[in-house]
């Protein structure tokens, strides 16, 4: 409970205050409201009525709305009124950003006024304002009767049918969000095998959505997400994930830019009794990016690590590199050192470390092959006499077999040494179950992938991964020794695509195989 309160306070710190940008809102209705998501435009036929927030009411025979530009053209016996004032025209053009209204008369040219509907004045002819594209009705993504538009943010259709999306059922309401801000894209839900958001409500400062989900190993789940959008690209996203056959999980994340070069972010989660939160700051200084991450959980664990990392820079011959240093502490009430008989209780462990990374350029070889390699080494020293060394190297290659088929291969090896000078056997006694582990680990992974791609319509990838790790024990350490996976992406209809992934881990978790899958629908 204390942790939840702390996270709530931190969330307010991250985003407080939350002044939203004022954005105009409008509603457009007609006999037929067609939405084209490719061009972010709405076409209205068979009579149109527009209500704008400023009290303006516009009617006409047809309308075209450009959601990108915040402009609209009302065609055919157009009429605009505000209170007792009414203006008539053969066609009307609205520009919400420029706050201008152009009236076209076939016998009088173009006149201009504004939202006050003051006496129109002759205006230079602006043909761009009266562009009404020649769109084909059958290509519309959504067909509706009414659309509520939040400028530069979203449009909500009531009801909505999807004529070009096979199998999509009609719904009483559909929210399409096109805001550029990160707050509308953020989610606090954990990754899922399938996740289909369904927007319910949106204003210039908030977004409410349901998520139909499927979690590998758990089953179907319903996610409910609420995003609050603030200034400086800031947001708070809070979510509740309600699986049918598992405990409810909660998530929260927040983000905000601090000036031109800094950010602050917050991530929190509560799942099956375990609560954790992380508060992070980043600040770019010249070619360095510094980070400060403070983490806390209800198990009595906390940590604070400050790090500075250079950007990737070219060394010579196309080799790139970066380096980073870190300093901080880890603390745990029950002790942070490895658990073994007779080990001392150390509740706080200070650390400082350095990491160096280098990557080769992409080397093009004979027979349409490519090769690249990376190497990454680090050393971390702790306040209790202990240090951790890691070295990881990776080699990745590809060979293009034909115009549509490519073979990929790779080998990745990582060695770590967790060393307690003069005390190694105290922390890693040979008899400790479940596995004999002396502080030195090796993780090796080889992969072979075959990919077939046929234009934008078909993609198939078959993968095999072989892991040789030490230690490699079910549930405790290492990775499944064998994994095969197939990914398929097809476009059965012009306006709908399906991505499907199926994987099997062999000889793991005491089972002959453990299946997993992923699924998504896209346009």
């Amino acid at each position, binding site marked *: 409970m204390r942790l939840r309160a702390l996270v709530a306070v931190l969330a307010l710190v991250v985003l407080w205050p939350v002044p939203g940008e004022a954005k105009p809102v409008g509603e457009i209705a007609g006999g037929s409201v067609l939405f*084209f998501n490719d061009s972010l435009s709405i076409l209205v036929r068979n009579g149109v009525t527009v209500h704008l927030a400023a009290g303006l009411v516009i009617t006409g025979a047809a309308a075209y709305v450009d959601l990108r530009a915040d402009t609209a053209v009302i065609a055919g016996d157009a009429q605009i009124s505000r209170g007792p004032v009414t203006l008539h025209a053969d066609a009307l053009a609205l520009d919400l950003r420029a706050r201008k209204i152009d009236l076209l008369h076939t016998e009088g040219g*173009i006149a201009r006024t504004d939202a006050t509907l003051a006496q129109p004045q002759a205006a230079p002819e602006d043909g761009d304002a009266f562009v*009404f594209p020649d769109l084909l009705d059958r290509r519309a993504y959504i067909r509706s009767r009414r659309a509520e538009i939040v400028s530069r943010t979203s449009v909500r259709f009531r009801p909505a049918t999807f004529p070009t999306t096979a199998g999509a059922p009609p719904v009483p309401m559909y929210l399409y969000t096109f805001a550029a801000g990160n707050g509308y894209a953020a989610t606090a839900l954990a990754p899922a095998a399938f996740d289909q958001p369904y927007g319910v409500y949106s204003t210039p400062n908030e977004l409410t959505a349901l998520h139909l989900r499927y979690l590998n190993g758990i089953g179907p789940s319903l996610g409910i997400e609420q995003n609050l959008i603030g200034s400086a690209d800031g947001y708070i996203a809070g979510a509740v994930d309600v699986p049918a056959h598992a405990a409810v999980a909660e998530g929260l994340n927040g983000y905000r*830019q601090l000036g031109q070069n800094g950010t602050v972010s917050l991530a929190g989660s509560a799942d099956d009794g375990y609560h954790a939160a992380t508060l992070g700051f*980043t600040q770019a200084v010249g070619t360095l990016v510094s980070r400060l991450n403070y983490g806390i959980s209800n198990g009595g664990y906390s940590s604070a690590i400050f790090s500075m990392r250079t950007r990737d820079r070219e060394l010579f011959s196309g080799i790139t590199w970066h380096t980073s240093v870190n300093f901080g502490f880890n603390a745990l009430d029950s002790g942070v050192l490895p658990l073994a008989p007779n080990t001392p209780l150390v509740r706080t462990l200070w650390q400082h470390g350095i990491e160096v*990374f280098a990557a080769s350029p992409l080397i093009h070889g004979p027979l349409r092959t490519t090769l690249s390699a990376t190497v990454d080494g680090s050393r971390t020293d702790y306040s209790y006499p202990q240090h951790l060394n890691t070295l990881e190297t990776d080699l990745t290659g590809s060979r293009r077999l034909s115009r549509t088929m490519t073979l990929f291969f790779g080998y990745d090896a990582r060695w770590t040494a967790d060393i307690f000078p003069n005390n190694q056997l105290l922390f890693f006694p040979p008899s400790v179950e479940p596995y004999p582990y002396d502080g030195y680990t090796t993780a090796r992974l080889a992969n072979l992938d075959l990919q077939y791609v046929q234009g934008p319509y078909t993609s198939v990838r078959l993968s095999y991964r072989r892991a040789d790790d030490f230690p490699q024990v079910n549930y405790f350490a290492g990775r499944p020794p064998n994994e095969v996976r197939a990914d398929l992406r097809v476009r059965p209809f012009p306006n709908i695509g399906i991505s499907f992934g199926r994987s099997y881990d062999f000889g793991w978790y005491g089972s002959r195989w453990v299946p997993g899958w992923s699924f998504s629908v896209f346009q």
Partner: protein
Amino acid sequence: MIVAAIIAAALSYRVVPLACTANGLAISGGGVLRISAQGSCAAVVPGRAISVTLDDEGRVIPEKLDPAAHPASELPKTAFSIVPTSSAAPIGNAVTITIVVTIPPSTPTGSDIYLSTERSSYNPAEIRMDQVDARRYRLQLPLQEGGRLAFRVTRGSFPTIERDAKGRLPPPHIVTGQAGAIYNITVEAWSDDT
């Protein structure tokens, strides 16, 4: 002169009418065509494309849509009482675009790269990209000509969404539908970089 009038009469032009009155046909782009004495507004539905032909005096006769009609931009200026300053936008044929994403060398080995688009409300694992080599991924997508697509790049989840070189969440990438267009995107960093 007579030959020119005959040729003009044989041609029809595709226009999107905005309004039709006894003396003028307003079309997309803000121009107003002079209506022929033989013409009427009967075939005109505002916002729905029609064809027009020219009479001997260069005035238009509205007609039902002719699929072979020429673009409105080819209409002679003399047919207008108000000459448009802009032609109508393209019809929007389907085109294929290619998005190529270059990832940082320090990206974890074996990562899948995804496009997360506004069409799915930014589902972070929406479309898995095809691998080109160790550093590049590619996706071909059909799009309407002149249309647009806003997207972000992820490694399959929101905590692994792309960041810019200064560690900030960048705005979405926006590409437009142009036949054969190739868009090269470079991911500077990931949200879970340490």
